[in-house]
């Protein structure tokens, strides 16, 4: 498994560009590693736009997407990323898993491990669950979302979208709005954008804010207009249906009235503001259709496109050691 010494090792100022076996969270990455990953992802965009979208570098490797929580978009994105790299991609959804039959998570993990996957992509509804599995399996593990904790590839694809639209992240003001409390996307983005030099704001009603966000370097706003004032990027978060009707906010109508992103509200932002949403959008709840469909400002479809590129980069990088790539 040890790779021969490389003629020109891919070193960044004497350091390995990505010294991680797994990708479990943004919290474990340094800013230069994030920037390097984004550069890698950048290279896959052209491949995805070409007519023949294929690269066989992962040929013969098995990628298992084990999703213990429902997902359509992220699962599809990982499946496409794996297939375009030539891997044998197998999806295990919550419906088909033995978890329903009472098997423990670790038994499921050991079962998957015994099938000798070369890469596991895991989503789970509990914070820390992906790390728990990563400790018990032999192959690299990629966190596709664990509870409220982290969703690193989402933050990376958001960063890539911002970097391409705004030619950089440093110094930007990014307002992340909506259900911060339950959002792993928000937590990963706070860390990523903060470490890359952006000024990050959290905008939400107090019932949907997490505590002590100032300790994460995030400024909090409960007034949407104040939170959007002068923003370069507005990132809307999805509000789950079960939280709309009295649990955390009184009604979708009232939520939209005070925290929905409308054209009028966008006027407070910079004129060239970029609007983002991790999807799927609740039109008329957190975002107005006119804003969502405004192609000059909305980066929503570009986020989806960057998602595939980022995931291809992550799958490539995390399997380099197994594939015996020189220097890895």
């Amino acid at each position, binding site marked *: 498994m040890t790779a021969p010494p490389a003629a020109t090792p891919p070193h960044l100022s004497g350091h390995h560009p990505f010294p991680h076996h797994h990708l479990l969270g943004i919290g474990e990455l340094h800013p230069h590693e994030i920037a390097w990953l984004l550069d890698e992802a950048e290279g896959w965009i052209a491949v995805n736009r070409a007519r023949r979208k294929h690269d066989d570098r992962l040929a013969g490797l098995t990628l298992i997407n084990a999703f213990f929580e429902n997902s359509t978009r992220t699962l599809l994105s990982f499946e496409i990323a794996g297939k375009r790299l030539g891997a044998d991609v197998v999806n295990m959804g919550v419906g088909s898993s033995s978890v329903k039959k009472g098997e423990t998570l670790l038994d499921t993990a050991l079962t998957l491990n015994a099938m000798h996957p070369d890469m596991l992509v895991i989503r789970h509804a509990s*914070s820390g669950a992906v790390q728990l599995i990563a400790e018990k399996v032999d192959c690299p593990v990629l966190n596709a979302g664990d509870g409220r904790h982290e969703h690193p590839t989402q933050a990376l694809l958001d960063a890539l979208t911002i970097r391409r639209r705004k030619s950089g992240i440093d110094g930007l003001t990014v307002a992340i709005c909506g259900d911060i409390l339950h959002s792993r996307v928000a937590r990963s983005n706070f860390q990523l954008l903060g470490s890359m030099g952006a000024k990050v704001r959290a905008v939400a009603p107090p019932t949907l804010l*997490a505590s002590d966000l100032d300790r994460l370097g995030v400024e909090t706003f409960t007034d949407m207009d104040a939170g959007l004032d002068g923003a370069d990027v507005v990132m809307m978060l999805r509000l789950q249906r079960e939280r709309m009707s009295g649990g955390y906010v009184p009604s979708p109508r009232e939520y939209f009235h005070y925290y929905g992103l409308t054209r009028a509200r966008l006027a407070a932002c910079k004129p060239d503001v970029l609007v983002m949403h991790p999807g799927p959008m609740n039109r008329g709840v957190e975002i107005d259709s006119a804003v969502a469909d405004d192609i000059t400002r909305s980066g929503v479809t570009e986020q989806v496109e960057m998602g595939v590129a980022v995931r291809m980069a992550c799958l490539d990088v995390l399997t380099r050691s197994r594939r015996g790539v020189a220097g890895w």
Partner: protein
Amino acid sequence: MVIHFTNARLVDATRDAPGALLIVDRQIAWVGAGEVPSHACTVDCGGRMLAPALIDGGVFSADAPACLAGGIASVVLMPDGSPPLDEPALIEFARAHVKPHIWVHPLAAATRALAGAELAEIGLCKAAGAVGVATGRTAIADAGVMFRLLQYASAFDMVVVSHAENASLVGDAVATEGEFATRMGLPAAPAFAEAMAVARDLRLAEAAGARLHFRQVTTAESLDLIRTAKARGQRVTCGVTPAHFLLNEQAVSGYRTFARVSPPLRHEDDRKAVIEALADGTIDVIASGHDPRSQEDKRLPFADAEPGMVGAETLLALSATLVRDERVSWCGLLAMLAANPARIFGLPGGRLDAGAPADLIMVDAGAPWRIDADRLQATAGNTPFDGLPTQGRVLMTIKGGEVLWEL
């Protein structure tokens, strides 16, 4: 059996002096100096500590091997069994089933099936041997039910052991709200959920004229409430487990489920407040909260894992850190580990007195050892203190005049 302990350092809640001690059959005959029958066996303590066997003021499992190895001869058993101890026959069974190894003093479930709705037969449970009544792992959410419980229990002079967490604020939380829980993405409840429960129960107990004991009090704010209530003369006592004065919430990093306890580990300021409260006597009891958990309960994502840790064997050594840090004396520690729980629950023992039960431990107070989860006597190894070097070891545990454990 007549045993003459010589050359001992006799320590209990009120004494710390060299001397000898004689036990005859199941009782302490004299302490200090006295007449020695010719047929007595002599045990030379070599200057080591001879103390009353510990009385664990709150366990979830009567785990005799672990208790004896930890110097515990009596346990106060929480009612959270399967089934919960909510009727007299179950109380009788709980008292009897580990005889003769340790004394088990069960607490009766406050409500049927611990559901928090209907009062259990606590009077009949008392007649069957229950030493108090407890709300279990959770608080009774309904203030009306709690009030009636306190009123009813006062008629039987039974202490009510309450779990101090406001149930509706806690919800499905597994951590204390703050920066750390936010970073970890764990469902969290504010620390003041404990103070709210303490304030409510103090007021209700005062109105009902009931004796109240909080099994675990872990925040500065709720300790202040108890300090004030005690100063007013209210009959309230409280306890804590070593986890809350030795660990803070950071012990959970890496999603270590062995550090998942209830109430959850707190901020560093609260941990320090617990130590202050141990030093100034606000906290009466250090209990182990002994709760062996199988792999199936703990090898899970953090929020899905069951709370609880084993603690019987490590109770004395972990508590002794307070003595080494000069926050309490050995006398103060033996009060919290033996005399106070005996007083609160009306149990014999807990002191070195003539006529007291011959439940004793010999301790090498300076002996260094390392906690090794795999080598514990407990039925499971779920301790967050695995690998911790510690000091103070039980060399011998005597219960009812019999040596039941020796290192």
